[in-house]
């Protein structure tokens, strides 16, 4: 056969070619990927060795966890107590959007002998811009709402005052440090405000202010302006004064 006559030189050449192909294929498809894989592994090992040599331990806290837990329990208890106190105090506040409180004020004014010129909700904005003292959605129908307003006006007239139904005065954003600011922002449920203008003599006004303290719910005068009427009263008649006040209910 011709294949048996291949010379030594040709045999060596064939071997070199075959060896090159086999070796090349082995190197290309086996050695190089394997070396790459080992390189990645070695890199990981080096990184881990570095981490082992220079471990980064978080700073151990100086506080004793048991002490902190005790403190937490104490603070929790104190907070709960305070919240209980707060809840108890909030029971002295009038329900929000309650017309009953407005009525009680009107009755107090009538009893004190001052005439209510104006009694309107006073809208104050919280520091984040949210409005408080929004008119309540009482769940009444329009007809029921009109009837309720009419009853309120009637009662107000009987008490000698005037109620401007549906009118809302916007007080803007209070300044930090004002009492209104605290009433709006420091309480979980911002208190509603009512701007009330009354007319009467000074003694009656004092009576009215005193009577506010004896209402079933807490009412606080957060702003007070008093003007004396320009016309002098006839002799023997006390001077009439007009008082505008903002009452937090």
């Amino acid at each position, binding site marked *: 056969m011709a294949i048996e006559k291949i010379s030594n030189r040709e045999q060596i050449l064939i071997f070199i070619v075959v060896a090159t192909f086999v070796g090349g294929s082995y190197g290309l498809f086996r050695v190089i990927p394997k070396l790459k894989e080992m390189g990645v592994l070695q890199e990981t*090992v080096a990184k*881990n060795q570095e981490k082992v040599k220079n471990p980064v331990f978080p700073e151990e806290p100086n506080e004793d966890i048991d002490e902190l837990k005790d403190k*937490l329990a104490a603070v929790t208890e104190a907070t709960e107590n305070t919240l209980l106190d707060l809840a108890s105090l909030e029971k002295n506040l009038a329900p929000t959007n309650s017309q009953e409180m407005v009525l009680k004020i009107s009755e107090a004014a009538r009893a004190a002998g001052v005439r209510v010129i104006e009694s309107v909700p006073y809208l104050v904005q919280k520091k984040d811009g949210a409005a408080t003292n929004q008119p309540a959605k009482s769940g009444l129908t329009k007809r029921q709402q009109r009837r309720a307003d009419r009853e309120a006006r009637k009662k107000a007239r009987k008490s000698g005052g005037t109620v401007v139904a549906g009118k809302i005065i916007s007080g803007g954003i209070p300044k930090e440090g004002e009492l209104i600011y605290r009433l709006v922002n420091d309480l979980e449920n911002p208190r509603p405000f009512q701007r009330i203008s009354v007319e009467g003599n000074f003694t009656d006004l004092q009576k009215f202010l005193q009577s506010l303290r004896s209402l079933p719910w807490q009412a606080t005068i957060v702003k007070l302006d008093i003007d004396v009427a320009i016309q002098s009263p006839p002799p023997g008649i006390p001077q009439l004064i007009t008082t505008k006040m903002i009452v937090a209910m």
Partner: protein
Amino acid sequence: MQLNDLLEKLPFNQRASSVLVCEADYTGLRAAVVARNSDNVAVTLETSSDNPDYKLAVAEVVAYMRKQGWTGKLAVLLTPSVMLAMIDLPIPPKNKLAPTQLAESVNWELEPLFAQHLSTLSIGRFFVLLGYLTPEQVEDVVSQQAYINSSANQSETFVYKRFGEIAIDLRYVTQAQLQRGLERLAWFQALGDEIKCGWAVQAASVVGDKADNAQYQWLACAMNQTLLRQWQAAFTAQALKLENLYPLAGCAIANLDIAHKAGKQQLLLEVYDSVIAGVQISGSHIKNLYVHANTLPDTLPNLTEIYHTLEDVEFDTIWYADSSARNDIDISYTNTSLEQLTQQAIKTISRPAQFVSAGMLGAARHVMKLKGAPLVAGVPVSNPQPSLTQRLGVRAMLGGIALLATLGFAELGLQVRQGMIESENEKVNKELKTINDAIARLQAKVDEVKKTKDAIKGLQEDKLEADSAVSLLSVDLPKRNQTVISFLSELARSVSEDVVIDRIAEDSIYGFTVNAWSLNEKSAQEFIKTFQVAVQPLDFKLKDITVGTQTGRLGLLGYSINFSATALDDAAWNAVKQLPGATVPASVVTQPTGAK
């Protein structure tokens, strides 16, 4: 050990486990199945045939062996047609010559010797060996033939008389005897000059001083190619491969337990009916070889002649292998005669079996490449194959193995390296895990502390807010109402009959601004002073006090009174006055506490 020797020992390269060994001489064909038994051989079957047609004789013995269950495929033949001789060649044992080149060199040396060998295969001697003629009758026939042919050559009609015709004319043999004799002779003598050789190097035997002129002893054998093909055809017809043909005498040496001690001299005397051989063994190689034609009556003289040829050599051992057809008494007599001749004990090699000679076992050892094989030479039937390392297939296999080994080493290196990296990785990961566990424990502690602190802080903030709300609802709001009432009450008490209040305005930061009018300046100052003292318990201070003339109600000339009642301290008051509209920090806007 050479690579070739290693390759020869490979399992797939091993020879057959059993071989049919045939021995042909003028009287017939003997055959035996010799099986390999580890490093030795054993006769398992034997038979013989005296059929004058050796092709049929081969068929008969093979049929017998097959019938006995032998299933081998290999056969060798010992025949007197094969010539054996020692020759000197300038070719070292380790050479790079191709087998064909080596065959040419051996042929060149053997051709003259082979012509001499043919004379031992003459028809006259053949007929003597068959017992048809006596040596004297042969001489008579030869002389008659010479005379008849020379006188006939002078006549006009020349008719050449052949040996057989003259022997018949002289009534020495019958026509049937002649026919039978010629039929047998056709398997031992043939026309044609082409010979085929076989050889075995006797490595250590170097003749000559200089390396350039060095001659190396080779044990060589040769056979007529026509006869070789004839025998090959006879065996092929029986589905057997005839591997080698061996000389009748010269193969028994393979059976000897030859010590490899250098310089040890041994002599083997091998006797057959037609031939006798003396082999001088020096160490583990054949030193000299003497082959003589023999007739049974001349056996002892021939042996004596060979021994005297080597008389100068002092033999350590003399072996005697008699494979002739003589009886044991004759063999024993010859043995005794040899001991008397050599003055030393003769080691006799008896026939292994009835039809098996020591030479047949030696040939079997050679073809099976067992111990003693290098001392035997046979004529290969197939063309000589290059050494294993020179065969393309073997080279390809070795190249492949080398390539695979290289790849294996490379792969091993990769695996070792990867193993080291993985081991290191495992070790580092273990250490890292320990550290990470410690870090995790510490971090958990830190997190728990932070969480607890955050919770405390959050609760404290909630509490602050709640406190603030509580303070607002429980303290500040009630106090505010009281402050307003007290402020107005104090104002009412401070006002005299000469003073009227025009306006009271409250700013949530500044406090109250009071505008009043007094009939006279003294009353104004008294009012201010009284009021200032009155509101002091309420933590109010009067600021920006102004008293100036102003026409009052009813057109009366009087004094205007303006001042602010504030709960701010001086610094805060100045700050808000300088920057109107600025936000006053809650800390400085203190609610008056005096209204008690």
